[in-house]
């Protein structure tokens, strides 16, 4: 009876932050990590894909061209044109398309077998992308309204009297801290947590099935593998969603910087 219900949990090392530090060449802050290599690879793959597709464009598209046009159309129309407005959206389509495709491919690396590591789970990468967007929307706002006008525009209209003294820092902090930090943190957090969850279910399942005693543990291991499969499907959805949201918010911030009513 005890053989059925015996629980041996010692020996299982739960996945944690150290699982994300994977230096391939060298060590320390200048190491070439798995994330670096995957990110470079994603750039190469995207460039190769776009060059291959645009080399022979036909009026009646083939499958790859149709797929590429769909992705481009999604970013160009429902993100750039509908949010920024048909007047000046074209300037920003390259940036938004790059952001979307880069984040999407790097996220998908988290579930595709030879790679199995989402590069956006290393905080540096979302931060770098966020900095590009941050500099862009502030530069646009300052160029449109001038430095003084830009900061004066952050004074909310309709707020009376001494409350302005409390509201203005709030508005300022939103523009310079909350927006960029949440932009990067949202992408990082989702990718980090998702990968950690998958690691837990898969390594836990392996431990339960292979290394534990007791029939019940084997069943639990099989259940863990099933959960890993379900969470992988969910993770694919989250990855697409996070890429879309990052690009959406970038377009919104750019649109807000270009807006007249401030």
């Amino acid at each position, binding site marked *: 009876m005890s053989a059925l219900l015996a629980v041996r949990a010692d020996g299982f090392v739960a996945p944690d932050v150290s699982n994300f530090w994977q230096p391939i060449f060298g060590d320390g802050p200048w190491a070439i990590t798995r994330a670096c290599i995957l990110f470079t690879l994603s750039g190469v793959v995207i460039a190769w894909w776009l060059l291959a597709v645009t080399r022979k464009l036909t009026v009646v598209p083939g499958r790859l061209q149709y797929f590429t046009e769909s992705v481009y159309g999604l970013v160009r129309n429902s993100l750039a044109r509908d949010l920024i*407005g048909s007047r000046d959206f074209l300037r920003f389509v390259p940036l938004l398309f790059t952001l979307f495709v880069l984040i999407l491919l790097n996220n998908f690396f988290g579930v595709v077998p030879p790679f199995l590591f989402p590069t956006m789970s290393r905080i540096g990468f979302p931060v770098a992308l966020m900095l590009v967007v941050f500099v862009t929307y502030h530069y646009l706002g300052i160029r449109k309204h001038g430095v003084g006008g830009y900061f004066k525009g952050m004074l909310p209209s*309709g707020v009376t009297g001494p409350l302005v003294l409390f509201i203005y*820092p*709030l508005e300022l*902090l*939103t523009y310079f801290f*909350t927006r960029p930090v*949440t932009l990067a943190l949202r992408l990082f957090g989702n990718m980090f947590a998702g990968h950690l969850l998958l690691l837990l279910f898969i390594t836990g399942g392996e431990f339960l099935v292979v290394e534990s005693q007791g029939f019940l543990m084997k069943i639990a291991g099989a259940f863990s593998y099933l959960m890993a499969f379900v969470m992988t499907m969910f993770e694919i959805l989250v990855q697409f969603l996070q890429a879309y949201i990052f690009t959406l918010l970038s377009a*919104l911030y750019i*649109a807000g910087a270009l807006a007249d009513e401030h």
Partner: protein
Amino acid sequence: MVEEAPRPAAPDEPASEIAAWTVLSYLITGPLLYGGLGYLLDRWLGTQFLVGVGLVGGMALSVYLVSVRYRTR
């Protein structure tokens, strides 16, 4: 040319989408800023309660700012 009366933005128009995310930013920033200030004041003055005052006050200010900014009259 007849001018249309201004109507509230439908959910699929960008103005309301911008508003939604901006509201979220305000609701995060208010408690963060004034809770943080409250915490720093607490450390300086040795009190315990100012961080709570900051959090609640910051939230109140955020909600006020959202209501003023996105007033529909």
